[in-house]
Structures are given as C-alpha cells and as structure tokens.
C-alpha cells in the first residue's frame, strides 16, 4: 500500500538517508529500530513530506510520485490519509487536550462538532486521559502530552499512522496500555510505521522489522529473522545491548 524507493535526504553536506527502500502492506505494522541519529525520524518525516527528500519515489495506494516533484495537492492528499505522532509531541499549544484531538476531525475531515467531541473523548479515554480534556499542553506532564499526541493521531482513523517513539515519556505501566491500544489498532487493520525502542512490542506486534543505522537499512525481516537469527554484525551488536543486563562499566 505504501512504498518508498531509493529515498535520499541530506542536510547540507551531511547525508542522513542514503537510499532507503520501504514497503508496507495494508494492516502491516512496520517497526523501525536503530541507534540515535540513524535517520529514523527523518525517514518518517519524509514520508509525510514534513521534510522534502532530495530524491526518491513514493507510492501510496493509487498515487505514485516522484517525491521532489510532488504537487501540493498530492502532498495534502497523503497527509489527510496519514497521521503522525511526534517524538516531541508537538501539541497545539493554544488548544486544550480535547481540542487538539478534535481539530483534525472537524477541520480536515469535516466531522460534526458534537460527533468529533465524542470521538475525541473516546480516544483520550483509551490512552488514560479521561480527567484531562480541558487541560492545555503546558498544564500536562510529559507522559500526558505524549498520550494526547497519540490520541490525536488515532482519532482521525487514518490509513497509515506514523509513530515516532510514542512511548518514550511513559512509565512501564502506561507503555503497556498504549502499546495495547496500538496492538488493537493493528488488529483492526490500521497500517502503522513505528519507530520505537520497545523491543517487546516490536517482537509481539511488528509484522516486519527494519533495522537502520547511519542512514541505511542494515537488515530487515520478520521479528523472528531479526531478533532470533540476525545476519549482520551491526544488528547483532545492537541487539546484544538490549538484554536486560546492561554493562554499566565504561
């Protein structure tokens, strides 16, 4: 359904994405792993045209386009059918938690106000924010903000949701809950691309795992391929560190 081919992106002289290919089928949950700075966020941003890639093709359902030459109509079309959960939340600062969620429904999807509120409330409840409807972002704790961001994305019921470390600010208890919400979405057939460091989630829910390093895809495959039979040395090295017993010596 969503396909990226040979995506290149540089910031100045620094090449951040060095030809990335990605293919997502409907209902798939693609998990992107990789060390900090490997280009995961940039990849998601390019898919949503928040960053203009230097070259590459993107096909999304019936659309098939050369990224640098995408028209603003095509871009807005893609954005309407995808949602993004930002690593740093990016909540609308002038809107309450509830309004943050209804905004996309009312304005972009022309849902009636009352229905939008209804949907938004349900989405916020799902992520455990029943009591915080009318709080402004600066009145929310880090984890609460992150959950509003997730609710905002899932409420619009998009074809694809791009998650950028959706559980980073959450405590283990909530991580469980949020990942459960995501798993439920997956079961309902929502396609997802998830950047995460939650290996358990990756293993349980991911249908396809991608391991990125330094702007390229080092290895990809089923969770089993990656976690149990990794081929590349870099992947092995990365996974070795994930075992619960860190080596705290330097």
């Amino acid at each position, binding site marked *: 359904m969503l396909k990226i081919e040979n995506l290149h992106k540089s910031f100045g002289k620094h090449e951040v994405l060095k030809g990335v290919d990605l293919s997502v089928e409907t209902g798939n949950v693609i998990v992107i792993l990789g060390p900090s700075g490997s280009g995961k966020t940039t990849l998601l941003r390019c898919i949503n045209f928040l960053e203009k890639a230097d070259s590459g093709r993107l096909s999304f359902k019936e659309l098939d386009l050369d990224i640098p030459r995408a028209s603003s109509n095509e871009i807005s079309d893609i954005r309407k059918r995808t949602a993004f959960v930002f690593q740093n939340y990016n909540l609308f600062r*002038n809107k309450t938690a509830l309004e943050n969620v209804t905004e996309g429904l009312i304005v972009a999807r022309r849902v009636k106000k009352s229905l939008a509120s209804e949907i938004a409330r349900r989405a916020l409840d799902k992520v455990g924010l029943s009591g915080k409807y009318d709080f402004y972002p600066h009145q929310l704790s880090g984890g609460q903000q992150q959950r509003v961001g997730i609710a905002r994305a899932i409420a619009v019921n998009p074809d694809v949701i791009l998650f950028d470390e959706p559980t980073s600010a959450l405590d283990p208890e909530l991580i469980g809950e949020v990942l459960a919400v995501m798993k439920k979405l997956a079961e309902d057939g929502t396609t997802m691309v998830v950047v995460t460091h939650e290996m358990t989630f990756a293993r349980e829910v991911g249908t396809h795992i991608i391991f990125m390093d330094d702007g390229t895809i080092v290895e990809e495959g089923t969770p089993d391929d990656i976690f149990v039979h990794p081929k590349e040395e870099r992947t092995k090295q990365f996974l070795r560190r994930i075992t619960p017993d860190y080596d705290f010596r330097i």
Partner: protein
Amino acid sequence: MTLDLEFMMRTFLLASAGIPVTLMITVVTLLLSFPAAFFMAISRIHRIKGLKVISSVYVSLIRGTPMVLQILLVYSLLPSLLNSLFKSAGLDIDIFGINPIVYAYAVFTFNTTASLSEVFRSALQTVDIGQMEAALSTGLSSFQSYRRIIIPQALVSAIPNICNVTINLIKGTSLAFIMTVKDITAIAKVEAAYGYNYIEAYIVVFLLYIIVCSAVQQLFKLIENSFNVNSHIPAKEVG
C-alpha cells in the same frame, strides 16, 4: 494667561464629531491592511521568489518616504492623472467628486500595511515550526493551519505591537487634514484659528485622544488577555 472655558466646551463637542472620522479611517485602514500585510509577511518568511523582493522593496519604500509625499502623489497627482486619462478616453467620470476620505484610506493603508507586515513577520517567527508540522500532518491545509494554529499563537506576541501601530494610526489620522478630511485635531485647529485659542484647542484634543486611545488600548488588553489565557505563555517568572 487664562483659558477660555466656554471655547473649550464648544470645541470639545465639535471635535468629538471628528471621532467617527478618526475611527472610520482607523478601522477601514486596519481591515484593508491586515490581509495585505499578512501575505507580505508570509511571502518574506517563506521566501517566495519574486514576492519576497517585491514585499521588501514595498516595505522599505513606504516606510522610507515621508507621508506628505505619498499624500501629494495619491491625493493631488493621481486624480489629475486619472482625470486626463478619462478625458482623453472620452469617459465622463467625475474623479474629483470622490470623497477625499477615500484617498485617506489609501494613504494610511499603504503605510499601515508596511508596518504591520513587519509586526506579523516577527510574530509569525515566534511560533515553533513543530506547530505547523503537527497541523499539516493532522490533515489541515496550509491556510487552515495558519488560521487555526499559527495565527492564534502568533497573535500573543503580535497584539501589543498591533496596538502600537493602531494607536499611531489613530493619532496619525490628523494628517488626513491635508486632504481636507477633518478628524479630531483638524476640527479643533479650525476652531482655534479664528481666536487663536490654540492652548485650549490642544487641551481639548488631548482629552479626546485620551478617551479614544484609552478605549482602544483597553480593547487590545482584553483581546490580549483572552489569547493569553488560552495559550502557552505563563506570565509567571522563574527568578
């Protein structure tokens, strides 16, 4: 030196008739300037080719030339030019019959647009790019993102400066007198001329401006507070 109180009373009443004129010029000017200034600010921020250059030249040209010159051009020269054009085209349009306040609108709009575009430019830049990204990725169009997310946030820092511009505009409308448009100051001056009651006239003008400008400032305070309550900026200080 004694003040002619009776003159002051009379002039106060007469000059209050200038308040609607002053406000009319102010309101029309602001209404016309806002969209124009906004698009200029946008074209500079987004570095839209061509438009950006036009905007910067416009801003510096308008800000950089005396208003009297602009008035001469718009009020005196332009109608003459149009008149001779119409005449040679055989059209029978009475260009000189136009209410001179129209020229006042034009001149003040030119100037206010220039200043406001800089106010907007600085205010829009206070909004984090993440807000725009979030809005776009939520499916809002650029226009909707600006209207619903970016502008309300930008207004918080723009309002005090819009207030400055507006107050200057209100006080600046007295220049419209060159175009025979009589605002508060002009009426008071006309009254003062016959008996040389300038001291009294200026006191009256001062009082009237206090009334008008206070109302306007109060209005802006209210608007500012209403935006502030709903927004991110905690007035509190960490010290």
